[in-house]
C-alpha cells in the first residue's frame, strides 16, 4: 500500500499583526513583512509528521484550537507550510466548506458545472454526471434558478451532491455534515460511509468521538499543534477522554 499523503515535520505560523499598522510601523517593518517575519507569531502546527495510506480512514481529534483545521487546509493546499514538506499524490475532494465556490447569481446548474471542475473533473465529466447530481440533491425543479433564491437547506444539499458525486479519491471531512432534513441527512451520511467503507482514502476531523471510533481505522490526537497520541481509534479516544476528564 502506498502513501497517499505524506507529511514530514510540518510547521505553520501565523503572524499576529494589527489590522492597520499605520505608515510609520509599516515602513519600519517592510523588510520583515516581505520576508514573512513578524514580531509576534502564532505557531498553529509545530512539527507534525504522519502519513496516510491508500484506502485508510484517519480520524483527527483534539480540542478547539489544536490545529485540526489548519492541518486540513495544509493538506488541501490552500495554505503553505512555513517549514516542512507535504506530499499529496491524489486529487482531493474537500468536504470542508461545501459550496465555497458557489456564486449566488449563477443558477444551480451553472454552479454544479463550475464546482465540479473546481473539485477535479473536466467539464465533460461533470456533464455526464449532472443528472445524477441533480437527482441526488432533490431540488430538480429549482436547478435552473439562481442559487441566491435557494433556502439554506437546498443550497447545502446541492453543494453536498456535487462534492459526493465527483468520484472522490481522497476525502477531507471536517465533521460529518448535517445537511438538510432528517431523510437527506441519512442519505448523505450513507453515501459518505459507502465511499469510506468502499476504500476511498479519508481524513476525518471530528469532535464526535463515537463516529471516529466507528468509521476510522487510525486516529491522531492533536494537542497544541503537536501529535499527542497516534494509533487505533479506541485507544487514542480513550487517552483523549482520560486527559479531558
Amino acid at each position: 500500500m502506498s502513501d497517499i499523503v505524506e507529511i514530514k515535520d510540518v510547521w505553520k505560523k501565523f503572524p499576529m499583526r494589527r489590522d492597520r499598522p499605520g505608515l510609520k510601523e509599516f515602513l519600519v517593518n517592510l523588510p520583515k513583512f516581505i520576508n514573512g517575519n513578524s514580531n509576534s507569531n502564532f505557531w498553529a502546527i509545530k512539527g507534525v509528521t504522519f502519513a496516510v495510506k491508500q484506502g485508510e480512514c484517519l480520524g483527527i481529534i483534539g480540542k478547539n484550537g489544536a490545529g485540526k483545521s489548519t492541518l486540513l487546509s495544509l493538506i488541501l493546499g490552500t495554505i503553505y507550510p512555513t517549514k516542512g514538506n507535504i506530499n499529496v499524490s491524489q486529487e482531493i475532494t474537500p468536504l470542508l466548506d461545501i459550496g465555497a465556490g458557489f456564486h449566488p447569481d449563477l443558477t444551480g446548474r451553472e454552479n454544479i458545472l463550475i464546482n465540479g471542475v473546481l473539485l477535479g473533473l473536466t467539464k465533460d465529466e461533470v456533464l455526464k454526471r449532472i443528472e445524477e447530481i441533480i437527482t441526488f440533491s432533490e431540488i430538480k425543479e429549482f436547478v435552473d434558478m439562481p442559487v441566491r433564491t435557494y433556502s439554506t437547506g437546498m443550497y447545502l444539499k446541492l453543494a453536498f451532491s456535487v462534492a459526493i458525486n465527483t468520484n472522490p479519491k481522497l476525502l477531507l471531512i471536517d465533521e460529518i455534515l448535517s445537511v438538510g432534513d432528517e431523510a437527506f441527512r441519512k442519505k448523505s451520511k450513507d453515501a459518505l460511509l459507502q465511499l469510506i467503507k468502499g476504500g476511498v482514502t479519508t481524513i476525518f476531523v471530528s469532535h464526535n468521538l463515537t463516529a471516529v471510533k466507528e468509521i476510522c481505522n487510525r486516529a491522531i490526537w492533536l494537542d497544541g499543534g503537536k501529535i499527542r497520541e497516534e494509533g487505533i481509534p479506541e485507544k487514542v479516544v480513550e487517552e483523549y477522554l482520560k486527559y479531558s476528564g
Partner: protein
Amino acid sequence: MNVFDHEFRRKRDLLWLLTKKEVTLKYKRTVLGIVWSLLNPILLALVMFIAFKVFMKIKMENYTFFFLSALFPWNWFSASVVMSTGTLIGNVNLIKRVRFPRHFLVLSTILGQLVNFIFALPIVVGFSYFQGEGPGINWLITFPILIVIQFIATLGICLMISIVNAYFRDMEYIVGVVISLLFWMTPIVYPLKMVPEAYRFYLAINPLTYLITAWRDLFMSNHIDWGSIGISFGSSLIFVLLGILVFQRLGKRLDEVI
C-alpha cells in the same frame, strides 16, 4: 485517459468556465444581457461623435475615429487593471477553501474584458470603412499579435497589483489615481505630435504609448508599425516576468493576509 491530458483539459475547462462566469455575471438580471456589450460601445461612439462634432467642434479630421481607435484598447487595459485589483480579495472563499491555480482569477478577469473589446470591434471596422483604409490583410497579421502583446503586458501588471492589494489595501486607491494619470500620459485623446518636444520624453518612457500607437496605426491607416510593436512586446515580457515573480513570492502567504 492520460493523467496529464486530464489535468490539462480540466485547467482549460476551469479557465473557460471562470471567464464565462465573469461575462455572464456582468449581465445577470439585465433584460438585454450580452447585447449590452455591443450596445455600450455603439452608444459611447455616438456620445463621443456628438460631443466632438457638435459641442467642441474639433477641427481634426475624423477625430471620433481617432479617439475610439485608441480608447477601446485602452479600456480593455484599464478595466482589467481596475477589476483585477479586487479579484483576489473578492474571492476569499475560493482561495481559502478550494485548491486551484489562483492566477486563473486574474486571467479570467482579463479574458472577460477582452470579450468587451472584441464586441467593440464592429464599431472600429465600421469607421475604418467610412473614414479609413478599410480592414485589410494587415489586420489579420497584426490583430492577433497586438492582442497577445497587450494580454501579456496586462497580465503582468494585473498579477502584481492583485497580489500586492491583498497585503496592502491602499493599492486600490493608488491604482485609481495612477490609471487616470496614465490615461492622460498616453496619446489617446491627443496625437503624439501635438505634445511639445520638451515633454515627449515622458510619453516615450510609457510603454503604453507604443502599444496604443500600434493599435491606432493599424485601425486608422491599415499600417503595421513594427517599431512600436517591438517595443511593446519587449516591455510586455518584462512586465509579465516581474508579475509572475511577485505573484509567486507573495502568493505563498496569501492565506495569512486575505
